[in-house]
């Protein structure tokens, strides 16, 4: 070889080496700009055909779960567009030339496949093959494979280019694997947080801002110039008495490294949410270097609401139970007593002679007792049927209607007594169970008529008014009265009688008190014997 020829060969080699480098650079840069593994693989196979003149190119990815090589991208020079691989070829490690390359993790060029026993015919028999493993350290990622119909097609240059591409792409594919895995973990975390009504936040020490999920931040500050909230912006959304709790919590963390959960109420979109808030413990994460302090929050509003509701239900049930046990007491004592007396008199009379002097008096007692039992049963019937109607919802009912209904019910007594009724309804409506409200005012009105002072004109003053939370009723009469102060609730006791000379069973005001208590109200009585009685009722507005 002449020196000119040598120079020409050398120049050609330099030229080729330059071209090789440019080809590698082109392929690698186009591959590295891809964002998904799929795109990376297609970019490689596409470039191999276009830039290296391959007739086909296939990439197998190693699937750890099945320990198989899966055909993940494949292209022939005849195919114009990329296609989805419907039935990807699966190869065991060691199977065929590709499997063998994957096993020993070393690239291989087979110049004549017809004499290589490992060769597996794909869609058509081809005579030469190149297979390059994609490996990162010891980790097998996949294999780039190409076949050609001619013998001795693949050159040292091809091997060099493919090996370089494979090793550079190994990093890219591995980092995309990691990223995809992180995206999956992140998605799982998001779902888990959503289900658990949880969220996460970060504090960036460089900007002094708290970062929540964007949606949460949007609910707190609108419009928001840039992501993150300053402490002041965040505290503006806190319940006033919780801002200090939050600051103290933070201070303890910054100064003493104490990360403890704090309970705060945050206004989100005008709705108050109960939040349990916690800074990540240093034992879980080293965050001094990053300047980001992470934490989580838990929305416990629903749980607390449920607890409140439960507490309310328990209270209601307890009240009901108390009312029931009171009625039980009425039956076991107040009804049992006169019945026992009736039985006693009847048995005694059997032992008495027909003309015994005690007989007429006992007979009279019997009549009296029977009437008493009848009265108690009527009272109980009334009280118990009200209790059944309590399944109805509470409703708004006009005082004027309540008073009119009961004046009508007591019309015969009113005609007889001719009381002066002064009714002043500054509060128009009461809120409660209609049956109870009617029963309450029936009892009050009936009592006023019954326990009037026959020496003077009966005057009944009824006034209703409201304050912030309650509806008040003042029911005043100038009847016989009893000595009572507002704190004294003897008048509402079961079977309590004050005017024994007047027919009565001591049940009316007892039941009235039960009914008012049941609706969440209070009742008190104030009076002086011989002057009159004032009953004050307080009912919740809603």
């Amino acid at each position, binding site marked *: 070889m002449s020196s000119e020829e040598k120079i020409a060969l050398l120049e050609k080699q330099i030229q080729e080496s330059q071209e090789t480098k440019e080809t590698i650079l082109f392929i690698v840069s186009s591959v590295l700009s891809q964002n998904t593994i799929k795109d990376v693989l297609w970019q490689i196979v596409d470039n191999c055909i276009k830039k290296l003149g391959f007739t086909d190119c296939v990439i197998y990815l190693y699937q750890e779960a099945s320990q198989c090589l899966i055909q993940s991208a494949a292209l022939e020079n005849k195919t114009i567009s990329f296609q989805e691989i419907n039935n990807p070829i699966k190869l065991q490690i060691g199977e065929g030339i590709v499997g063998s390359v994957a096993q020993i993790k070393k690239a291989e060029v087979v110049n004549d496949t017809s004499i290589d026993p490992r060769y597996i015919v794909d869609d058509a028999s081809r005579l030469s093959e190149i297979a390059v493993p994609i490996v990162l350290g010891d980790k097998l990622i996949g294999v780039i494979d190409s076949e050609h119909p001619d013998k001795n097609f693949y050159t040292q240059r091809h091997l060099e280019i493919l090996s370089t591409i494979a090793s550079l792409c190994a990093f890219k594919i591995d980092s995309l694997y990691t990223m995809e895995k992180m995206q999956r973990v992140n998605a799982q975390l998001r779902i888990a947080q959503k289900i658990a009504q949880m969220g996460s936040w970060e504090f960036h020490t460089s900007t002094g801002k708290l970062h929540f999920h964007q949606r949460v931040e949007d609910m707190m500050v609108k419009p928001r110039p840039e992501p993150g909230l300053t402490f002041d912006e965040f505290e503006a959304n806190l319940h006033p008495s919780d801002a200090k709790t939050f600051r103290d919590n933070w201070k303890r963390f910054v100064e003493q490294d104490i990360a403890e959960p704090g309970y705060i109420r945050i206004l989100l979109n005008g709705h108050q949410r109960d939040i349990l808030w916690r800074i990540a413990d240093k034992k879980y994460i080293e965050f001094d270097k990053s300047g980001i302090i992470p934490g989580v929050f838990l929305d416990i509003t629903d749980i607390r609401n449920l607890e409140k509701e439960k507490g309310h239900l328990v209270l209601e049930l307890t009240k009901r139970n108390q009312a029931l046990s009171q009625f039980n007491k009425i039956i*076991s*004592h107040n009804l*049992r*007593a006169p*019945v*026992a*007396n009736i*039985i*006693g*008199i009847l*048995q*005694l009379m059997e*032992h*008495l002679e027909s003309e015994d002097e*005690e007989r007429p008096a006992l007979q009279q*007692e019997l009549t009296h*007792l029977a009437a008493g039992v009848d009265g108690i049963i009527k009272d109980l019937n009334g009280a118990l049927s009200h209790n059944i109607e309590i399944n109805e919802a509470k409703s708004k009912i006009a005082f004027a209607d309540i008073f009119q209904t009961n004046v009508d019910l007591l019309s015969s007594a009113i005609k007889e007594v001719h009381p002066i009724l002064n009714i002043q309804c500054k509060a128009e409506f009461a809120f409660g169970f209609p049956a109870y409200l009617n029963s309450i005012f029936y009892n009050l009105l009936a009592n006023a008529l019954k326990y009037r002072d026959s020496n003077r004109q009966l005057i009944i003053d009824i006034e209703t008014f409201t304050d912030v939370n309650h509806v008040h009723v003042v029911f005043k009469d100038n009847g016989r009265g009893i000595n009572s102060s507002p704190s004294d609730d003897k008048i509402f006791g079961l079977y*309590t009688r004050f005017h024994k000379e007047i027919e009565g069973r001591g049940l009316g005001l007892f039941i009235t008190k039960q009914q008012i208590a049941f609706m969440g109200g209070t009742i008190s009585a104030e009076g002086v014997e011989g002057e009159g009685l004032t009953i004050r009722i307080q009912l919740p507005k809603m």
Partner: protein
Amino acid sequence: MIIIIDDDPISSKIAALSIKKGIPDYPCLIFNNPKVALKDIEELKSKEPKINPLLLIDINMPEMNGWEFIEALNVLIPESENRYKGMILSSSVDPADIEKAKTYQRIIQFLTKPFTVETTLQIKQYLV
């Protein structure tokens, strides 16, 4: 002697008449007010130290109920003296009352109203 402490005049009258029928001429005292009963019993005890009456005590009474009456009586006449024994005479059939009666050494029986001539004969063994 039998002393009835019961605010219900009818019930106490039935008891007294039943005793009269069961054991003719047996002395019987009725108190419709337990406080008055306490005062008189204290007087009776000092005046007639040898007498040992049986008490029939109602539970549901205004002002002072049967239990309060027994507690007050225990101060006047300690249970350890084994005198002035009592029986509950109540219209109540409440198991809690029956259990409570058992806690008093003084109370030897729980009678449910009405008190009849048959009841008189049943308790005769406790009368002196």
